[in-house]
């Protein structure tokens, strides 16, 4: 079986869940090789990658790789594609992951599939397009298949791999240093799970009414271990930070459970959450389009329903 490269997503040295999902997928199609780019690599990180099936771990852990926008990561992967001739390259379908995939596709003269929600034999990818209205199966026909896979497309399953470490020495080219990151500004995040990775997401919209009122949404989220999301109406009003926006121009989420409170369900919002497995809606307007995709809906005032739901969940724990 041949090798499949998986670009590792990591934060503060921690491997993100989507990477474990990608390793799980890669194992079903070949031998999984993890590619670590940037600082923060450790024995613990390696152990985690091996636990989920990485036979090899390529490590390029210099700061240089993350000090410039996207290009150095694409160069690193292109070098590995040249040296190792993998059967495919998998990245997470985050905005940045897709950009890495795009540049890599140009560099290696290979096809790219963005936003796969499943991947099978022959690297045939499932895509859910047009806001979830059409399902497509597609595949790369030239070069090394490069596939960006949406987080939560598969459940991570542990199965030990050899975890053989190989250092990769790379210095980004001058061209890859053209866009320099001079400062990283972190906006509050808190202890909640990350939005795109969370199994449960609770989102609030214009109906929440104010920044203070988002506490109601946060309490519900915390009672059930969820991430908090927001519609654009709520982020535009500055009630909640923009990085929590769900939708076409925000994050695409695909959790097990999505709870929408005070959100009407505009097409641009639905584009970011329609592939959620189960959807619960709380809205006072029975005509709100979001009810069309609800598995369970409550027509009512969120200021009554949400706190009661939170209380019930706490009670039943």
């Amino acid at each position, binding site marked *: 079986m041949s090798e499949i490269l998986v670009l590792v997503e990591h934060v503060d040295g921690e491997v993100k869940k989507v990477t474990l999902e990608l390793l799980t997928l890669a194992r079903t199609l070949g031998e999984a090789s993890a590619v670590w780019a940037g600082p923060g690599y450790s024995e613990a990180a390696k152990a985690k990658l091996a636990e989920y099936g990485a036979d090899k771990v390529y490590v390029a852990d210099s700061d240089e790789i993350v000090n410039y*926008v996207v290009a150095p990561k694409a160069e690193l992967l292109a070098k590995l594609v040249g040296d190792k001739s993998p059967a495919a390259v998998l990245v997470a379908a985050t905005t940045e992951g897709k950009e890495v995939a795009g540049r890599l596709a140009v560099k290696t003269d290979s096809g790219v599939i963005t936003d796969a929600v499943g991947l099978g034999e022959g690297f045939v990818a499932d895509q859910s397009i047009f806001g979830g209205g059409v399902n497509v199966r597609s595949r790369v026909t030239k070069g090394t298949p490069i596939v960006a896979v949406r987080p939560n497309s598969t459940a991570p399953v542990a199965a030990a791999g050899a975890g053989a470490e190989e250092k990769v020495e790379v210095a980004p080219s001058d061209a890859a240093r053209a866009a320099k990151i001079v400062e990283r500004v972190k906006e509050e995040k808190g202890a909640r799970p990350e939005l795109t990775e969370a199994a449960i997401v609770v989102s609030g919209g214009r109906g929440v009414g104010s920044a203070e009122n988002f506490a109601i949404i946060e309490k519900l989220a915390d009672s059930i271990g969820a991430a908090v999301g927001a519609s654009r109406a709520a982020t535009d009003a500055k009630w909640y930070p923009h990085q929590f926006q769900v939708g076409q121009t925000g994050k695409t989420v695909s959790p097990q459970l999505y709870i929408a409170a005070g959100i009407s369900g505009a097409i641009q919002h639905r584009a970011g959450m329609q592939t959620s497995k189960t959807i619960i809606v709380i809205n006072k307007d029975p005509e709100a389009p979001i009810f069309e995709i609800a598995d369970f809906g409550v027509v009512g005032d969120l200021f009554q329903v949400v706190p009661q*739901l939170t209380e019930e969940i706490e009670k039943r724990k």
Partner: protein
Amino acid sequence: MNIVVCVKQVPDTATERKLRSDDKTLDRDAVDGVVNELDEYAVEEALRLKEAHGGEVTVLTMGPAKATETIRKALAMGADKAVHLSDDALHGSDALSTSYAMAQALKKIGFDLVILGSESTDARTGVLAAMLAERLGTPQLTLARKVEVNGSAIAIERITDYGFDKVEATLPAVVSVVEKINEPRYPSFKGIMAAKKKPVETLGIADASVDGSAVGLAAAYSEVAEFAAAPPRAAGTVVKDEGDGGVKAADFLASKKFI
């Protein structure tokens, strides 16, 4: 400053979008074409930069003949002129061939700054700006919520998972914008009238030095094997809150083993 803004015509998101049964490409004839929403933000940013620094704004669209409607809208907003890359040979191009053809057109037009939307509403690949930067060998300044130009220096705030990155580079550069960046203007009546007289140059692939064997459906690097309408979501249960809506929602969560 010579700014080129890339504008795509997409099917109206409010209509039902379909793939063609013959060649499995997007059926662009069946639906109304509109300007890709995010590209209006790209046009607005280009106009603001021109207003601040002088220069010229050129619209670049790749698409079938009917994409001229989209070009007129961008011109009515205030862009100076347009280039329409249009050729039957381009039909069915994937992201790789699209970026190749557009990069060739951009080289022909010449630019200090290229501005795109961060994503189209139809294909939503979100790769084009990165691919153009790679092909043109220019800095990639994507996902910008703020753009500042100072002489030949350019700085952006790039949206990230944790907040944003401050990024610096030197022109020429490729920028993509998110919708937080500005509020696009509406074309005025005067703008709409003026747009009718603004120059639109149509380029075929040969005019843009695009190799015909590297674009279109036949040259695609990927293929759609099959497609089908998604099975409709099973109709859910909707209850009216009678003072126990939260309890009922909790019952539902329990039935699905979430609690």
